[in-house]
């Protein structure tokens, strides 16, 4: 294993980690604010990628397809939140079943529309090149993904620490009546958070298109990975998701080199180890159950 191959693998692991971060951040924020485990999140990822695929197939530039796909997923998120999620606030089993059912519907619809063949997104020509540092050669696209991930983290940090809504979200929306009394439209916040999460999942899906491709079953795989990231990082904590996602992305990629058929087992074991040491996750606070 030469240094240059290893370094590319590390970059790849980091890039995958950023993808996991983007999708897990949405999941964990939705969970932290709304107390909902959104099992349809994986389908948001996949659908976002498919939408971009359709646009790209119609000669739309990647750079236009990206924001459109994100917007489409955000709108889907708004619709789902208003039509369905709203009806089962506070009822946990019902919420799980609801998002579960939605996951089946969306995944099957995606298969219906886009078929069962594996697809990929073409890397945008601007980024379809490599950069070299001495003997090390890095694909630019992966650097780009890492950059976007870091930008997202910076954005979330800013939002949380510098804005009023961020403070509210950080405080937790445990007592909705009280928060309402503070003059904050809780319903709007919830819809916004859900749409934001869906949009993030879509973003991650599009960016992941060139790396992961799109295929039936990807939604379940990516959902499981994001759930593991959320658990490892801690419920509701996007910082935890950041650390957890990078950790898992790196270990999974490196694991694939040496134990290709056991990479998922390794990731799972990481989660088990973290849970044994710290049952609430790395950055998790006590859960209100």
């Amino acid at each position, binding site marked *: 294993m030469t240094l240059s191959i290893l370094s590319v693998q590390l970059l790849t692991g980091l890039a995958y980690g950023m993808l996991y971060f983007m999708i897990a951040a949405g999941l964990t924020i939705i*969970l932290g604010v709304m*107390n909902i*485990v959104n*099992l349809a999140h994986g389908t948001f990822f996949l659908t976002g990628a498919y939408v971009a695929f359709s646009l790209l197939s119609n000669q739309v530039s990647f750079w236009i397809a990206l924001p459109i796909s994100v917007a489409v997923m955000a709108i889907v998120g708004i619709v789902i939140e208003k039509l*369905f999620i709203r*009806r*089962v606030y506070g009822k*946990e*089993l*019902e919420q*799980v*079943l*609801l998002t*579960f*059912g*939605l*996951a*089946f*519907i*969306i*995944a*099957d*619809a995606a298969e*219906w529309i886009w078929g069962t063949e594996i697809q990929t997104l073409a890397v945008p020509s601007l980024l379809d090149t490599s950069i070299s540092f001495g003997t090390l050669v890095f694909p630019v696209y992966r650097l780009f993904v890492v950059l976007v991930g870091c930008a997202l983290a910076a954005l979330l940090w800013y939002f949380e620490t510098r804005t009023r809504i961020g403070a509210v979200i950080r405080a937790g929306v445990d007592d909705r009546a009280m928060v309402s009394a503070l003059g904050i439209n809780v319903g709007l916040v919830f819809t916004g958070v859900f749409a934001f999460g869906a949009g993030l999942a879509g973003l991650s899906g599009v960016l992941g298109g060139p790396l992961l491709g799109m295929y039936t079953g990807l939604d*379940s*795989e990516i*959902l*499981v990975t994001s*759930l*593991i990231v*959320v*658990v490892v990082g801690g*419920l509701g904590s996007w910082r935890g998701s950041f650390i957890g996602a990078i950790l898992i992305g790196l270990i999974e990629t490196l694991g694939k080199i040496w134990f290709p*058929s*056991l990479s*998922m*087992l390794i990731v*799972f074991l990481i*989660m*088990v180890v973290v*849970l*044994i040491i710290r*049952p*609430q*996750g790395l950055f998790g606070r006590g*859960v209100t*159950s």
Partner: protein
Amino acid sequence: MTRQIQMLLLLVIIVICAPWIMTQYGLTLATEIMIMAIFAMSLGLIMGYAGMVSLGHAAFFGIGAYTVALLGPLLHNVFLLVLCAILLSSLIALLSGMVFIRTSHFYFLMITLAFGQLLFALFWQLKSWTGGADGMKVSVSMDLGFGDIFSPLGLYYVMAVAFLFIYVLLRLFVQSPAGRIIKGVMENESRMIALGYPIRSYKLLAYTISGGIAGFAGALYAYYNLFVSPDLSNWMFSGQVMIMVIIGGVGTLLGPAIGAGLFIILQNFISSYTERWSMIMGILLVALVLAGKGGIAHWFAYIGSMVRRMRMKKDTRTKPKEEEVSD
């Protein structure tokens, strides 16, 4: 108590007589229903009596099925083979439960899902042992000591007896001290702690038993289908059995079994018309959740209690407690 014995007798009669009114195809369906009923009841146990929502229960079903498939060539005795399947799935339930149950219910949900998918991935990846995505044939014969049973009718009766057996066991269990304590833990955990119960141990007990029964169902499935595949551990399958429990009624013993029956009949019916069963199942689930009245068994209980209320005087002091297990 007599009411429960009546119920059991009714069940036995239905189960024994059912083949007489069915077609050959209906018989295979009924056999599958028996197996799924066992599986559904095992999930119903932890969901309705221990309050644990698991999205990875199919993991144990898969373990049971693959144990039979893999050990079948080595062990020819049915009882031994099935016992191995039950022991292995119980053991894995115990070990995984020890880690999972310490976490909050959100995490529990997510981790059990991940666990189920892990097993799915393992069955898929370890091709040389399991045949991978293509699955593997099961070469066993249902020989209970008086010859190989391979006729559809024979298999049906074997599975039906298994179902009744599990039903009776579970019925006894929920009335036992341990069973009632587990229900108490679901009803009010903090009070149970204050009363002196080690609640984690009881939850673990319920989870282990449930995993073992699910493994039993998986083993039976291997004998019935003579073919196993990784999908048996996929979360889609976990989701299906959860739907069965919901349709039938969480918190009742027989509800999940009824739900299994309805689900399988529905699935077969709809699948013959369209490939989009998955989507329809999702729509069904969403509709069920939004309609929000609980499952079939709850409907029966609801109607039953309305009738009772109409017959009684208004004195709340003499109102008898409602049986929470209405079957």
